[in-house]
């Protein structure tokens, strides 16, 4: 008995060591961004490994707001992200429900084609849509980028929501119908609240993908005043002279809201991410 207890102790100790090592690996690159953002201007290319540098300063953060268009970019990003997330969640919540509960012509084909869109390389939609937006005069416009982002996010969102609705037993709706609810009421009052974890995850993914997207935005938003945060951020990092201080500060301000949101909502990840209703 004593022997198995020592064995268990060794196993648990090793488990903690492994977890702590991986936690350090996870945190370290993020701590680097913080370090760079706090470095004073004359020590940006320091070789020190400290996390909080000597003479830490918030000058970079101030410069970001005073000397660059950061606020403007943030406004652009907020506007675009909010619209895309809202559209994505509403459409996915309704369409996913339709796909989950009802049979109709073309349902299987539509589900399959949504899965197939995941296999499109980025350029497959980007190139034709880019030419289409050029022809429609929507380059450098909010509408153009919103269309692009909705297009890429929607299929996965619908799939994800459909998968979650599949796990909700339809006997609940039948009970609601007997109690006199209309079809819309059963959906809105009974099913939707139960689908909250999936709605949260769908919203989170839409939010994250458009808040941080770079390669599509770089083609469509070419005017500095229309830039989103990622393009502005990338502009600090160029081959000739990287503005590490500004880059670090901007990165922190872009990352912190996403990370906080993600970590707060991460308890829903396990239940909300269903990968298309495949039950374990």
């Amino acid at each position, binding site marked *: 008995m004593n022997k198995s207890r020592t064995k268990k102790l060794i196993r648990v100790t090793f488990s903690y060591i492994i977890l702590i090592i991986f936690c350090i690996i996870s945190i370290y690159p993020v701590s680097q961004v913080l370090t760079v953002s706090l470095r004073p201007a004359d020590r940006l290319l320091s070789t020190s490994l400290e996390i909080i540098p000597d003479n830490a300063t918030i000058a970079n953060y101030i410069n970001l707001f005073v000397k660059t268009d950061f606020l403007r970019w943030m406004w652009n990003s907020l506007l675009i992200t909010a619209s895309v997330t809202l559209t994505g969640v509403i459409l996915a919540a309704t369409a996913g429900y339709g796909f989950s509960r009802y049979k109709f012509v073309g349902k299987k084909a539509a589900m399959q084609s949504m899965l197939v869109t995941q296999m499109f390389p980025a*350029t497959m939609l980007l190139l034709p*849509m880019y030419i289409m937006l050029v022809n429609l005069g929507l380059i450098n416009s909010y509408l153009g980028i919103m269309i692009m982002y909705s297009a890429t996010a929607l299929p996965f969102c619908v799939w994800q929501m459909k998968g979650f609705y599949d796990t909700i037993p339809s006997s609940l709706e039948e009970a609601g119908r007997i109690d006199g609810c209309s079809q819309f009421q059963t959906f809105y009052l009974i099913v939707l609240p139960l689908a909250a974890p999936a709605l949260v995850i769908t919203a989170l993914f839409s939010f994250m993908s458009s808040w*941080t997207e770079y*390669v599509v935005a770089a083609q469509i938003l070419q005017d500095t005043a229309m830039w989103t945060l990622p393009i502005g951020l990338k502009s600090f990092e160029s081959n000739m002279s990287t503005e590490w201080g500004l880059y670090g500060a901007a990165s922190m301000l872009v990352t912190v809201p996403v990370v906080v949101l993600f970590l707060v909502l991460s308890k829903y990840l396990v239940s909300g991410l269903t*990968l298309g209703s495949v039950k374990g």
Partner: protein
Amino acid sequence: MNQTLRQKIFIFFLVTPALIILLGVVVYPFVYNVIISLSNMNLRHIKDWEIVGFRNYVKVFTEPSQPDFYVIFIKTVIWTIVNLFFHVVIGVFLALVLNQKEIRGKGIFRTILVLPWAVPQLIVALTWRGMFNYEYGSINQILGKVGLPAVEWLRSPTEAFVAAIITNVWLGFPFMMVIALGALQSIPHDLYEAADIDGASWYHKLRTITLPLIKPVMVPAITLGTIWTFNNLNIIWLVSNAGEPSDSTHILVSFVYKAAFNFYRYGYGAALSMIIFFILLIFSVVFMRKTKVTEAVY
């Protein structure tokens, strides 16, 4: 109004908006992409293009570019396999460690371990690029501290490719970990108790209970992960700064992005996009057939 008609109207309002959008922004561009791939469209012929048949497809396979299609294809396969291997192995391993009942503070560990997933990919890529810097980057600083020679991470082809893989492994393992955790939690506990009574070893339980039971959840995740990794433009593009040194650090998707948007070879880019798409389509169909897991989806 009769019942079935009302139901039909309800379904119509639920599904139609999403379908119209998908038709407009997925189906239409797809068809348009096919047309572009058969045309001679480029910067000089953006309005007066004409259909030239399969010339662009032939070019993809035969044009002696530096590097050529086959080299990049093999690199893409290596990129995908190496990344997925580490994502799944690290992810499942951490999930197993974290799922032991003796571990305290599970919530805190899980929260910290999903951090790489939470950080925007753009920032991940640029930050790691900074960390791989030869003189100032912390990777070489750390290598120096333990007495290893500094590595020219970003200036030589192989090292730059390895740097991109390290970055992508870092950001990808939490996804697999979360999926595996979800799957592990759904395994009924009495299975292990029964195995314990039979005196099964730890390894035996892993092989006969844990792995088979998380497989139905892991396979779709791996399929999606493969597709996403194969098509992950962000990391390779940003870590290698558009394929540096001298276009030797490309996977297919970054190569086609460069052809289309830096060299304005629209026809060629569209043809290469189609080829990438078909490679993935064939892979997914074969993989899904073999593993038979998504049958329940429809």
